[in-house]
Every structure is written in structure tokens, then in C-alpha cells.
């Protein structure tokens, strides 16, 4: 359990990855691996990305060859802020309770 990543929800990881600017699939894969230590599979990544686009949380930019960058929408940024806020409260509470 100790080696498992703290956050493993692919949708949340992609929202975090896109928070500092547009990225295409391969860049998101590398970014998520770097900041969360999670190696998303290509199917998992595009499954989550297509849901986020379907729900209006990310939007596609013009394709660059076979690659297409995506960026957060306003709704996606609000969703991310809400989810990070919830996680942050949970982390603070947990830290207080363990006395750290």
C-alpha cells in the first residue's frame, strides 16, 4: 500500500496536468508520470480525456499532425479547484488527527 500513488483518478490527474497549459496526449502521459508517479495506459488516458471533453471540462485545440492538444475550460478549472479543495481539507484533517 505504501508504494501506491496518492491520487490515481485519471480524470483528476489529467485536469491537474492541463492546469498549467495545453498539452497533447503524449505530453500528458509524461507529465502525469513525473508529478504523480502514475503511468497511465494510452487507453485509460484517452478514455478519461474523452469523458472530460464530453462533459465540457476540457476542449480540443487544432490538431498538430496526428497529435491534438487539449486545454482546460472554465468549467474544468472550477471542477479541478473544487476537487483539490476537497482533497486539501481531507489532507489537513488527516494531518491534524495524526498530530503531524
Amino acid at each position, binding site marked *: 500500500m505504501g508504494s501506491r500513488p496518492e491520487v490515481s483518478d485519471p480524470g483528476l490527474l489529467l485536469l491537474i496536468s492541463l492546469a498549467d497549459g495545453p498539452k497533447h*496526449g503524449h505530453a500528458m502521459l509524461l507529465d502525469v508520470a513525473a508529478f504523480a508517479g502514475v503511468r497511465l495506459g*494510452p487507453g485509460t488516458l484517452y478514455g478519461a480525456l474523452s469523458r472530460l471533453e464530453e462533459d465540457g471540462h476540457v476542449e480540443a485545440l487544432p490538431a498538430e499532425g496526428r497529435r491534438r492538444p487539449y486545454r482546460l475550460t472554465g468549467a474544468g478549472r472550477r471542477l479541478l479547484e473544487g476537487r483539490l479543495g476537497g482533497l486539501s481539507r481531507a489532507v489537513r484533517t488527516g494531518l491534524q488527527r495524526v498530530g503531524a
Partner: protein
Amino acid sequence: MNAPRLTRILLRCYPSTWRARYGLELADLIEASPLTPRVALDVAAAGIRQRLHVAQLAINGGLVMTIGPAWRHPTAFAMVGAILLLPTFLFVGASLLAYELGVDAVRGMMESVTSAMANWRIVDLLLVAAPPLAFLAALAPLVRLGVDRRDGALEGVIAVRARLLNVTIGLVALLLAGVLVWHIVVESVLQVGP
């Protein structure tokens, strides 16, 4: 099997509309790193989840859910119809040449064929059954049955289209079926003939 070919096979796990939108990007991502069994399993499982997601949207959200793969593969179904029809087409054509137009060379050949067929009545049955089956195969892709949700209620949806290849094969099948029925009625029921 090379990676691009395996990638194409893996992409078949996804619904066609999803593939049309994201297929190139996903293929690029798959081919950017070694295609290990873990990656293949991840892509296939995500494709199946996407198919389930689309089916759920269709049932809950009002998208049209089509029934029948024939709609998506009209040429393949037309070819199946043509292949089914070919033996009957050749047999009826040769019979017309031999017995209606009196081409002696063909008549000799037909007589040896029909005497050989006398011991194989199943061949007769297959030759007669082929045109209706070919008709169905050729025309099935021209009709689409679907289920749509409107105002909370499920409704049947029917769509019809025309395709020259399928219609032509369907008409030839109908014509051959007509010739066979005429032949059976005139020569077997009315007992008229040579």
C-alpha cells in the same frame, strides 16, 4: 504481427464514432512506446468500457441505438448476396441458352449436369433457396431498425436508403426467383414441357 497492424486491431474495440474522433491520436500514443501486453490490455479494456458507455447513453440519453451490422457493411452484404446467387445464375442462364434458345453445345453440357444432379437432390434445393437468401443479404443493409428514447418512452425507428449495388443484386435475385417459380409451376404443377 507489426505494431501498426496490432494497433488497428486494438482500435476495433472502440465504437466507430469514438474511433473517428480519437483514433488517430490514440494510435499515435500507442505507437510512441513499446506495445507491451499491459498496454494492449489497457487499450482493449478501455475500448470495451467505451462501448458500454455508448450503449448506456443510447438507452438513457436518447441517442439512436441501431440494430444490425448490415447497415455498416453494405458492400460486404452485397458480395455475400452475389456469391450466393452465382451458381443459380449460371445454372438458369445455361438452361435458358440450352432449352429456350436451342444452343446445342450448352444443351449437351446441361444434360450431363442435370443427370449428375439427379442423385444429388440437395443441389436442386440449394439452387432454389439461393435467390431468396441472396435477396435478403443484398437488401438487408438498406433498412435500419433502431430504438430511440423520446419524452421518456422508447420508440422504434426505421430508416431506408438506396444503394445501386445492393438494389441491382436484389433485383437479379428477384428475377431469378421468378424464373425458378415459373419453371416449377409450368413444368411440375401444370405438367407442360418437353
